[in-house]
């Protein structure tokens, strides 16, 4: 009798069903973000009505704190997970729309300075993290992932590099957990340090964009300080993101030369594939705004739409951060990441002070 081979049926959900599955999580993001906004407004109104001096806690922090509270107590139920994961989408759409608040001249001026600072930051961070990984005897590919994560742009850079250098899943989850935990820590410490050092909006925004790894956390750390600092943090972070292709390509070539990864055949296609397209979208909107394609009211509307997108992002940052899960990943990569981040934060702060002195900000 011939053997019967049972081929398991793989059901791909229809696009409509996939869209429906996003709804609960999206509603949760909106509810948390909106609750954060209401808390900010109501506490400020209460303080004013009762002549109290209360610290102004922005909606950004409330949304993150509410998300963190849910994620680390009751947890995020399965039904919400796919919708919550869309926070990255809102972050990128928000950044594109934020382009309307930048004139091309400002981008060229600040972009030139930040490009130089970013180049120094990336080179210094990769060199230091590689040295630290060797000192702590981490696996070489894990060290590469941690170096890329802290030098360029957090989780996206780690995911892009993992594929290019054929790193283990375990190494990438270690690095992602370390970068996320340190990003959450930076979110709360950076504004405190900035205020303690009396940093101006420009200096702080550039520092947050240079030193905080994940784009969502860099955006939030900037927005927690001030609106102007938030805008600059996004600009500098986007400049860092734009470098991702070059750094990943360099790592891919290095590991391929050691016979431990595939050779990159078409380098231009590789760079285009890794290039973050939202940076182009940001530039397109900025060019349109510079040449007055939008009226003043329309620019305000675009800016407000960008803030709504960020509101969903900040709620997602809190919901995505689970300290228990991060603790499970082990101490060594986290220690390397933590030492690296502290040194990179100090190094980038010195860079910002240097630029401030040189350019007379």
């Amino acid at each position, binding site marked *: 009798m011939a053997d019967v081979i049972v081929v398991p049926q793989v059901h791909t959900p229809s696009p409509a069903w996939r869209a429906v599955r996003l709804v609960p999580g999206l509603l949760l993001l909106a509810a948390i973000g909106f609750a954060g906004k209401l808390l900010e407004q109501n506490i400020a109104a209460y303080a004013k009505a009762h002549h109290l001096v209360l610290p102004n806690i922005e909606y950004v922090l409330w949304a993150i704190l509410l998300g963190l509270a849910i994620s680390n107590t009751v947890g995020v139920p399965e039904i919400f997970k796919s919708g919550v994961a869309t926070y990255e989408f809102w972050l*990128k759409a928000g950044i594109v729309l934020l382009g309307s608040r930048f004139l091309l001249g400002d981008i060229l001026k600040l972009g030139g300075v930040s490009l130089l600072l970013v180049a120094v930051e990336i080179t210094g961070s990769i060199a230091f993290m590689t040295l630290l990984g060797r000192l702590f005897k981490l696996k070489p590919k894990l060290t590469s992932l941690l170096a890329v994560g802290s030098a360029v742009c957090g989780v996206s850079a780690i995911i892009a590099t993992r594929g290019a250098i054929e790193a283990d899943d375990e190494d990438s989850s270690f690095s992602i957990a370390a970068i996320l935990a340190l990003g959450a820590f930076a979110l709360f410490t950076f504004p405190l340090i900035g205020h303690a050092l009396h940093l101006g909006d420009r200096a702080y925004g550039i520092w947050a964009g240079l030193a905080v790894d994940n784009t969502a956390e860099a955006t939030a750390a900037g927005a927690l300080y001030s609106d102007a600092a938030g805008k600059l943090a996004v600009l500098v972070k986007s400049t860092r993101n734009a470098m991702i292709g070059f750094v990943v390509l360099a790592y891919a070539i290095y590991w391929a030369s050691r016979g431990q990864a595939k050779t990159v055949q078409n380098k231009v296609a590789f760079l285009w594939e890794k290039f973050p397209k939202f940076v182009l*979208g940001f530039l397109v909107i900025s060019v349109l705004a510079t040449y007055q394609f939008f009226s003043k009211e329309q620019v305000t509307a675009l800016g407000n*739409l960008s803030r709504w997108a960020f509101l969903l992002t900040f709620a997602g940052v809190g919901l995505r951060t689970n300290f228990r899960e991060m603790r499970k990943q082990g101490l060594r990569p986290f220690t390397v990441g933590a030492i690296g981040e502290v040194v990179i934060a100090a190094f980038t702060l010195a860079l910002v002070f240097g630029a401030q002195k040189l350019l007379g900000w």
Partner: protein
Amino acid sequence: MSPIEENTLNTNRWRLTLDSWAVVIALLAALLIRVGVFKHIPW
């Protein structure tokens, strides 16, 4: 290459990344604001 593999590759080639979708949706929203479909976005 089997027809299934070929089909999958062709489908993936035209699939937009999350990054590109964010750009498309944001540009579409900007266009709708520009042509006056959304006149005022409150905050």
